Structures are given as structure tokens and as C-alpha cells.
């Protein structure tokens, strides 16, 4: 390698060096509308784009779930503009509900949305490592979203968000053309976008930290975004491969997932020699890490907020980091626990089960440390803190049904019943959503320069918190009673099989709770958009927090630190330090404020 730093050779380059010329404009923001808001390269704009994409998706998913709940208990209701929901449509609704929620909400908002916005700021960088790639990643996700809407409006795919072949591979088994194909195409695009995003996150975290921001001084949010990006990098490629193979099975006549000798609706299939279990392995090798992709950023946010609002350092910072890493690592070794009943070799169930139970340990460490953080604190109950506490409560409730399902023995009666639905909605769905809400209330002042309404926020919290439990707790009982998932009608016309009829009052209770909780989300939307315009002006550091985003104006200037790269002298959670006048020490405070 030559010592190139000292060897400018512009004649060879053939272009005039421009850095000198444009030094004065180095921090100018783009002015054109398109460059500024549409094809922006600014990580903050891209973060918001992701956030609003997730917001659109979450309301799509929410409406779908309300329609599902209507169909389950009042199947005769005619919905204006839709009519009576048919049982087949119910399957379409649940497939798209799952897909929108898992991919376009739980993967998009916590990681791509808030991660994009705050990772660079929290580590003291002016932007992500590759802004163009970042923009490309968002627009690919957006394309995936549009294609998924296309699936919604052509023929709804009915194979569930897991799309198990052979149902999903054989059009005349029910996965009709267009719907299922667009679904797969959308997922493939989403995978590609997520890979780009993961690459950007990892490089940014490793390479763009400012002076003094050692890995052990990163806020836990950054740690979780980092580990999530690694999970995404390793998982999405596998789903992409699987998705392409399934597309080929559907459209090119290959037989990766379709065995020979099948007769579907009286038509003999020409496929031969594939394995339906192969898809399940590929899918869950992605699918289980995906669960952690959804929840890890929420854990980071909860840690951040519990420490900030308890005015206490996080309990066991390093234990938290190691727990996140352990969860990420173990997350790749447990995919088989989704397949205990699949016909997979029963011997492997031993190993998968043991690994899965082992994940309970780092999860328990996290819970313990969250409680430890609140212990002897001085808790301020702002809305973001309420949602963080709600997150912990839901994480505990959803997590503790895990050890039931992780044991193959107990999975026999519980697999594919509402017990599973209750489990993953509490932990992966609502807990992660609580993480998103907490993050929204916490960072809104920074993102929009105004405060959100506290009273509306509290109202929103109480409705959502109680409503969530009212919806999902009873589902455990239903699952134990043997209520299978993905059944459009509880009671078949003609009344032949009424084993589940006794559950009907409970189903109605759940539906009503779901309607109320869904309606309560309007409070959030009103609060969000009203506060953007009319909220109280936000100071630089409204929560008296310590991390870097609270050192810069709200909203942050175009390049975050206005050219003054910060220097970090302290860990991220220095609250109530004895002998320091303020009850918090900013990461950028002079080292002399508090010696370690």
C-alpha cells in the first residue's frame, strides 16, 4: 500500500477537487421537495418514511384483525363495502394481517424506522454509512409494500404468513395465481431491502462511532439495533432463497417442496420428489430470528426508558448486552421448535427444546434487570415510561407461555391452537408494539420539535394496556380447550361439531375488547398529528436524558451535529450520580464531572 495520504495527484484524476470549493456549503440541506422528502438521503427523513410506512401498515393490519374478529363471532354481519365475510376470505385476512404486521410493522418500525433515525445520532455520526443504499433500502421496502397491496387487491393469498407448501405451491390447492405469487415477490423484495438495511446498520455501528463512543458506551438501543441487524443479515438471505425456490415451484414446474403422486381436487400433479418440510426448515430458520428482530429493539427502548425515567443507571449494563447477544445466538438454533408436530425426526426435538428453554435464561436476566433498574429509583411517570412498564409486563406474560410451547410434550395439545396465538401476540406482537409506542412518545419531541399530549397519551396507554390483556389472556384458555388456529367459523353450519360452542361468549368478549382497543388507537393518531402541529414546543432535552440525541436541537439540523462531532466521556446511563449536582450526566459532559 502506498502512502497515498500525502500524494494528491489531481492531474491524473482529471477532476478538480471540490471539497475546498464547497466547504462552505458542506452542511446545507437539500431544498427541493423531492430531494428533501421523497428521495432523501438523510437518515432522519428515511427513518420517518419507514415509520409512516409502518403506521400505514399497522392500521391496515388492525382493520384486517377487526374484520377477522367480526367474522369469528358475528359471521352474518354485512360490512359496508365488503359484505359478509366468507370463510375463505377469513384465511386471506389472517394471511395478510400476519404478513403486514410481522414484516411491514414489527420489522420496519422499531429497526428501520427508529433505528435509522437514532442510531447515527446516538453514536455521534452525521448519517448512516451509505446514504444512497439507505434510500434504496427504503424504496425497495416500499415497492414490497405496494406489491403486497397488489396481492391484497387481486386474489388474497390464503396460506398464512408462513405459507407452507404444498398448499402454497399448488395453485389448485387454493393458493391461486397472482395472490400467492405477489406475496412471494413482495417477501423477496422485502428480504433484499432488509439485507441492504442490515449491511448499513452493521457498518454504521462498527465504523461511524464518534470519539469516546466505545462499544461499551453505546446506549442499549444501539446494541439491540446492531444485534438485530446481524440477525437480519443472516436470516433474510435464507428466506430469500426459500422464497425463490417456492416461486419456481409455482411457476416453473420445479419440485423443491412438492412430493410426487399428489392429487389435488381430482387433478394429478406433475411434480415429483420434493419435500414440504424443507420449506419449513428454511422458513423457520428465518422465522425464529425474525421474532427477535421484532422484539430486540423494543427491549433496547425499554431499557433506555426504564433507566431514564427511574433516574437510575441501567441494572447490569453488560449483562444486558450479553443477554441480547445470547438471545441472538440461540435464536438461530431453535427453529425446530415450530416443527415438533411436522413429521420432523422426533430426536431433534430434544435439542431444539433444550435450546429453546435456554433462551428463557437471557430473557429472565433482562426482566430481572428491568425490575432491578426500577428498584430504589425515583420514577417519573411520563407516557413513554408507562409504555415501557407495559412492555415489561407484556414481555413477562407473553414470555412465560413460551416454556409450555418449548416442550414438545406440551406442544402436542397446544400446537396450532389459540394458546400459540395468545403467546406470540403478547410477546412478539403487542410487546413489540408497546416498544414502538414507548419510542414514539419518547422521541417525538426530538423528531418533531414538539411535545405530545400527556393526557391523551395516558388515556391511550390505559385503554391499550388493559385492552391487550382482555384480548389475549382469554385466548390461552381457548387454546387449552383445543380451539385450533385459523378456523374461520367456530360452529359449522348445520351444527354438527359444537365442541367449541361453549367458548362463544369468551370469543364475543375478545371481539368487543378488540374493537374497543382498536378504536382507542385513534387517540394515538389524533395525538400524533395534533401534536406535530399544535404540541408544546419541545426543549432540547425534555426528559433530562443523557444520550447524544438530547444534546442537539429538536428537531435536529440536517447533519445532526452541525459539523461539531461530539466527544463522548461517559457511559449512557449515568443518573443520580452521587456528588454531581444534576441528577444526570450527559454522555458529552466533560470527563471531570464524574470520574469512573
Amino acid at each position, binding site marked *: 500500500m*502506498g502512502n497515498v495520504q500525502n500524494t494528491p495527484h489531481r492531474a491524473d484524476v*482529471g477532476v478538480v477537487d471540490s*471539497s475546498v470549493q464547497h466547504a462552505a456549503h458542506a452542511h446545507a440541506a437539500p431544498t427541493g421537495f423531492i430531494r428533501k422528502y421523497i428521495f432523501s438521503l438523510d437518515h432522519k427523513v428515511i427513518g420517518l418514511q419507514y415509520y409512516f410506512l409502518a403506521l400505514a401498515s399497522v392500521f391496515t393490519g388492525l382493520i384486517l384483525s377487526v374484520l377477522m374478529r367480526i367474522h369469528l363471532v358475528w359471521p352474518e354481519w354485512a360490512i359496508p363495502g365488503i359484505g359478509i365475510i366468507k370463510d375463505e376470505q377469513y384465511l386471506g385476512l389472517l394471511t395478510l394481517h400476519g404478513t403486514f404486521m410481522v414484516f411491514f410493522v414489527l420489522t420496519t418500525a422499531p429497526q428501520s424506522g427508529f433505528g435509522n433515525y437514532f442510531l447515527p445520532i446516538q453514536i455521534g455520526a452525521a448519517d448512516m454509512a451509505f446514504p444512497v443504499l439507505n434510500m434504496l433500502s427504503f424504496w425497495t421496502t416500499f415497492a414490497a409494500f405496494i406489491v403486497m397491496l397488489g396481492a391484497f387487491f387481486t386474489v388474497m393469498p390464503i396460506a398464512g404468513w408462513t405459507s407452507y407448501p404444498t398448499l402454497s405451491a399448488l395453485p389448485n390447492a387454493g393458493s391461486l395465481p397472482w395472490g400467492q405469487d405477489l406475496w412471494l415477490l413482495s417477501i423477496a423484495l422485502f428480504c433484499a431491502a432488509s439485507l441492504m438495511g442490515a449491511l448499513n446498520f452493521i457498518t454504521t455501528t462498527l465504523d461511524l462511532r464518534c470519539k469516546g463512543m466505545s462499544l461499551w458506551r453505546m446506549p442499549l438501543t444501539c446494541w439491540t439495533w446492531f444485534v438485530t441487524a446481524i440477525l437480519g443479515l443472516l436470516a433474510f438471505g435464507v428466506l430469500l432463497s426459500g422464497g425463490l425456490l417456492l416461486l419456481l415451484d409455482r411457476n416453473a414446474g420445479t419440485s423443491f417442496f412438492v412430493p410426487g403422486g399428489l392429487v389435488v381436487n381430482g387433478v394429478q400433479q406433475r411434480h415429483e420428489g420434493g419435500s414440504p418440510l424443507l420449506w419449513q426448515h428454511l422458513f423457520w430458520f428465518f422465522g425464529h430470528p425474525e421474532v427477535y428482530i421484532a422484539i430486540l429493539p423494543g427491549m433496547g427502548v425499554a431499557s433506555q426508558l426504564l433507566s431514564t425515567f427511574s433516574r437510575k443507571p441501567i441494572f447490569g449494563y453488560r449483562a444486558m448486552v450479553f443477554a441480547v447477544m445470547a438471545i441472538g445466538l440461540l435464536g438461530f438454533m431453535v427453529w425446530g421448535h415450530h416443527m415438533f408436530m411436522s413429521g420432523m425426526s422426533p430426536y431433534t426435538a430434544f435439542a431444539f427444546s433444550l435450546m429453546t428453554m435456554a433462551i428463557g435464561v437471557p430473557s429472565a436476566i433482562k426482566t430481572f434487570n428491568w425490575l432491578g433498574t426500577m428498584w430504589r429509583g425515583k420514577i417519573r411517570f411520563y407516557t413513554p415510561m408507562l409504555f415501557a412498564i407495559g412492555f415489561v409486563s407484556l414481555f413477562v406474560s407473553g414470555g412465560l407461555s413460551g416454556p409450555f410451547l418449548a416442550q414438545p410434550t406440551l406442544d402436542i395439545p397446544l400446537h396450532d391452537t389459540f394458546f400459540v396465538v395468545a403467546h406470540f401476540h403478547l410477546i412478539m406482537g403487542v410487546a413489540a408494539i408497546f416498544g414502538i409506542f414507548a419510542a414514539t412518545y419518547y422521541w417525538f419531541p426530538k423528531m418533531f420539535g414538539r411535545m405530545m399530549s400527556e393526557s391523551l397519551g395516558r388515556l391511550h396507554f390505559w385503554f391499550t394496556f388493559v385492552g391487550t390483556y382482555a384480548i389475549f389472556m382469554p385466548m390461552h384458555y381457548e387454546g387449552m380447550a383445543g380451539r385450533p388456529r385459523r378456523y374461520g367459523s367456530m360452529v359449522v353450519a348445520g351444527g354438527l361439531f359444537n365442541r367449541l360452542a361453549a367458548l362463544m361468549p369468551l370469543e364475543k368478549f375478545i371481539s368487543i375488547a378488540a374493537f374497543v382497543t382498536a378504536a382507542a388507537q385513534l387517540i394515538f393518531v389524533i395525538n400524533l398529528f395534533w401534536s406535530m402541529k399544535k404540541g408544546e414546543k419541545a426543549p432540547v432535552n425534555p426528559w433530562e436524558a443523557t444520550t447524544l440525541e438530547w444534546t442537539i436541537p429538536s428537531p435536529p439540523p440536517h447533519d445532526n451535529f452541525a459539523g461539531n462531532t461530539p466527544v463522548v466521556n461517559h457511559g449512557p446511563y449515568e443518573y443520580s450520580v452521587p456528588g454531581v449536582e444534576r441528577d444526570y450526566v450527559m454522555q458529552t459532559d466533560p470527563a471531570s464531572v464524574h470520574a469512573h
Partner: protein
Amino acid sequence: MGTLRQSVGGSGRGDNFREGGGGGERYRPGRYEPAGYYERLRRYRLAVAVLLLSVIMIFVALTSAYIVRAGMGTYDTVTHSYVYDWKPVQLPNELLLLNTLVLVLSSGTLEMARRNLNARAVTAGLTGLPGVAVEPERSAPWLGITLVLGMAFLAGQFLAWRELRSQGMFLATNPSSSFFYVLTGAHAAHLIGGLVALFYAAFATVFGKSLATRRIVVDAAGWYWHFMGALWIYIFALLHFGK
């Protein structure tokens, strides 16, 4: 950093995009690039390493599917037993070996281009010294040869596919032919990405890129390209020995 930025000039902030007319308030993507050559090199190498990790995962998934399928019995409804029906593809070995050679050769020529750029960077700063000759520009031709070889490899793969088709082995004929097309096709798709990067590197002068930028592009594209070569040898070995 500050002093570095001044001294590197050409490899600094301004060179990452083409300079247009007025400039002014125009938004410039490369703004946040680090100034120093080594900082930039490190970042792009890191990105390529991370990128390759995701490529590896794609092929790990395909490989495990391949191995599982090759060793799997399928249930035969007539005999009520599991039969091992894996019929390996007759690979056009000579042609594929030739393709392998072409690809390996292209890695060599790319390395020559990279070395030429490095040598130029070293000697360029010593122009004033007696007895030191500035290394002449040879990277563009080397890159051109690499490009041609890369495309020759793709053409060779295309011939291989045609040969299989002429034997009646299509994508959907049987599981092993499906895997053959999918593995080689996925590799070819990734290779095309590498070709685009090399094309960009070869014409970087035309695009008005600095020497430092070209070195970085060639270096990053080089890692990717060498990996594509190794990946191809791996796939070839898998198809050949993993029946």
C-alpha cells in the same frame, strides 16, 4: 482528520460524485464520507465483508436444501416404501472446467489492475524525485480484460445450460437438474453484480473519479470478485462431488 482532509484533496469529500455546474445548495451524497483514503477503504471493505456474509447465507440455505434433497428418500405410493430417486445431472465437466479457468484467470487480471493502481498511487507522489518513474496507467486495460473474461464465463455458463437443455435436462426435469440451474443461476446473478462494479471501476476515469476512489472501487469489487470465484469453485465441487 483535519490535516488529512486538506492533504488528500482528491480522495477526500468532493470526489465521490461528479461535479456538476453551479453546485451551490445541491445535495451531495458523499458529504459524510470520511476524508482519509484508509478510512474510506476500511469502510468499504467492511461493507463488502458484511455483504458477502449475506451472500454466504443465501448459498448456505441452497446448499443445505441440496444436501437434504440429495440424501432424501421419497415415499412411493405404489410400493409403499421410500425410494431414493436422486438422479444426478451429467455435468458438462470439460466446459465447466474451462469456465472455472476463465474465472480464476479474471481474478488474476483484476489483481494486476489493483496492483497497478497501488503502484501509481505510490509513485505519483514521488514525481519530483530523481530516478523515480511514475507508474504508467495500466489499470483500465487490465480491468477491461477482467470484464471480458467475466463475460466469457457467463457465456460459458450459458453454453453449459444449453448443453443440458439439449440433453433434455430442463429446470423442472428432476430435482437435481432444478438444483443445478438454481445454484448456477444464483451464482451468475451475483456475478453480474460484480460485473457492474467492475464496469464502474473500469470507466471510473471517464466518470471523473479520483485515483483514490478508483483504488477503493477496485479493491472492494476485487474482494467481491475473488469471492465469486471461490464461490463458483465451491458450487462446482458441490455439484460434482455432492451427488
